[in-house]
């Protein structure tokens, strides 16, 4: 091979694998850079103070007539946000999002065990505070804040797991 031909093949055959590993190392560093930028973006997003979300109050039709130990499905704040209003045996109300925090299957109310049960993967939440009782859900159900106005039950806000009232 003369010098001119050598110019077209600057890498010796034995070094071929070594060069591709070096390229791979470069790719790994770039990936690491991407992940670092992503993590930094998340940190910035988390650090920026934002206004508390506000929700329009909404009357829950049939909430006042709900029998103790039963539940009523409704939607709040948007029509696709399915929720469950529960009336406990002592007459108090609680409401939660119906979407399981694991994979969003709708949960069912089990009055005899005072819990919300997800039949998809045997997850369960307390019907008192929405905390996880068993199964794979990573965190509590979002809680719907309620107000009783002149005997009628109104949904007035949504509180995510970990948020204070």
């Amino acid at each position: 091979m003369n010098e001119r031909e050598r110019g077209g093949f600057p890498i010796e055959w034995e070094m071929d694998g070594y060069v591709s590993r070096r390229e791979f190392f470069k790719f790994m560093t770039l990936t690491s850079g991407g992940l670092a930028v992503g993590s930094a973006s998340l940190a910035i997003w988390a650090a920026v103070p934002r206004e508390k979300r506000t929700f329009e109050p909404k009357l829950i039709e049939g909430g006042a007539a709900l029998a103790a130990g039963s539940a009523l499905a409704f939607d709040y704040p948007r029509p696709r946000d399915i929720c469950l209003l529960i009336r406990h045996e002592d007459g108090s109300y609680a409401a939660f999002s119906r979407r399981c925090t694991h994979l969003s299957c709708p949960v069912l109310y089990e009055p005899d065990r005072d819990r919300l049960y997800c039949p998809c993967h045997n997850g369960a939440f307390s019907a008192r505070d929405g905390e996880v009782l068993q199964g794979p859900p990573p965190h509590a159900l979002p809680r719907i804040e309620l107000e009783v106005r002149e005997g009628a039950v109104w949904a007035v806000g949504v509180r995510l797991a970990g948020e204070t009232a």
Partner: protein
Amino acid sequence: MKPFRDARERQKSTVFVALLLFSLVLIVLQLWLFVAVLENLLSGHATMAIPAAGASAVILAIQAWMLLGVYRMDRQA
């Protein structure tokens, strides 16, 4: 001289593979950090985000340092 050079190349190659494996471990750790922070943010917890970003930046610095080392090794060859 050639056997000595071959042995040196093999040694370099071993070091290179070790660096690559370490780099892979770091990337997996960084990916895990990113996913954990994202999950925490989605569930309303933001406390982990800043320390995780710091750790991620440290990992990037280690990766960059290793890459520079690789280039330096090449120049010496």
